[in-house]
């Protein structure tokens, strides 16, 4: 897989001049995905969301590759349509290039409203990569709760208040749902680890059939932190076991990253305004930490790793 020097030789497929927040994780995510993909000819679709809205404001587009957006809940279905067109036109000799397809969606457009469309596209086996950039809420519309929002987080539709600590539920495990589609490649990665991210994108694009990558992508606005620490925060999510990085290749689980030392979840929480109200609620934090460990240990077992007690 390519080293950073190799990536640096490639042509950038995304220009600056987009209107994402300063320090936006999605900008980093998209750049790295496209760098990893740039040895191929690619066509990208995106669901409605920050990434789409801020990078394509008429008449300015940051995308140097063909890019298509139609609506919020259907990045996967739309991409599957283009992929189907490719299959047909290639068969008829009207397209001669080898082309790869990448559909982007945020967690709102993927975990929630777009889940059906994604599930359908994966089940049908289109030759495409779906990238979910998970920032744990509907950021584009103003930080509303999604099923990817972590328990206890403050969102504008699941706010903390006098009698509530914010979101009651744990995050839905979308990567597991995708792995259950028995697609050839499903993985979870993070912008905190460019090497892991670009490696997984390359692997996914080299996979015949549908693939899915869930990318942890901090949002400075929704999470309320100093934008300079975007990468640091993403790293912490994995070092606290909150966001494990792993892949499922033809049903085989493989852990991609194991922190040398697990960091307390509180270290991740205390850097973000969305968890400010939780810090004094030790009982809640402990409970969440336990659940994180339960999920982590389950994953370790799936990956054939030794479970530490």
């Amino acid at each position, binding site marked *: 897989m390519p080293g950073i020097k190799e990536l640096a030789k490639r042509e950038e497929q995304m220009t600056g*001049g987009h209107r994402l927040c300063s320090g936006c994780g999605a900008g980093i995510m998209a750049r790295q995905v496209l760098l990893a993909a740039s040895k191929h000819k690619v066509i990208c679709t995106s669901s409605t969301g920050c990434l789409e809205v801020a990078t394509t404001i008429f008449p300015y587009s940051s995308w140097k590759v063909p890019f298509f957006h139609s609506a919020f809940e259907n990045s996967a279905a739309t991409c599957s349509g283009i992929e189907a067109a490719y299959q047909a036109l290639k068969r008829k000799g009207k397209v001669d290039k080898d082309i790869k397809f990448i559909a982007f969606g945020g967690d709102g457009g993927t975990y929630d409203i777009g889940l059906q469309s994604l599930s359908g596209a994966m089940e049908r086996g289109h030759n495409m990569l779906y990238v979910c950039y998970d920032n744990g809420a509907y950021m584009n519309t103003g930080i509303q709760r999604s099923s990817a929002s972590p328990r206890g987080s403050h969102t504008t539709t699941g706010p903390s208040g006098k009698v509530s600590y914010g979101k009651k539920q744990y995050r839905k495990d979308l990567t597991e749902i995708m792995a259950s589609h028995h697609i050839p490649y499903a993985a979870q990665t993070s912008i905190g680890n460019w090497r892991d991210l670009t490696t997984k994108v390359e692997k996914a694009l080299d996979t015949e059939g549908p693939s899915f990558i869930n990318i942890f992508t901090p949002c400075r606005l929704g999470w309320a932190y100093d934008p300079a620490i975007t*990468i640091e925060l993403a790293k912490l999510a994995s070092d606290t076991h909150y966001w494990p990085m792993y892949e499922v290749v033809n049903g085989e689980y493989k852990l991609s990253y194991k922190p040398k030392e697990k960091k307390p979840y509180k270290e991740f929480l205390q850097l973000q305004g969305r968890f400010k109200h939780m810090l004094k609620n030790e009982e809640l934090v402990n409970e969440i930490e336990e659940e994180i460990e339960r999920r982590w240990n389950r994953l370790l077992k799936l990956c054939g790793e030794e479970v530490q007690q």
Partner: protein
Amino acid sequence: MAEIKKKGWKELAHGDVLEAGTAAEFETGNWRSERPVRDMNKCISCLICWINCPDSAVILKDGKMTEEFDLKFCKGCGICAKVCPPKIQAIKMVPEKKSGK
């Protein structure tokens, strides 16, 4: 900033077809209150700042770091300074007003 001339409805392409990469014409540098300054004596050209820049504002030449940042795009988030390895610390964020430019 050179703005693209706004066309009338008869001149525009069908639908909202938009040429690729035109955002390169759009300046976001004016969002910045701090700018990165690189000390080329310290920089080891590890490219970590480059790969983690959300705005494609780290300028490479022949695959290596240069002193320059693309200030047309750089929004001054400070990620580059933060991800620079702790032992290197080649990038400093400097308030715009004091930068003298």
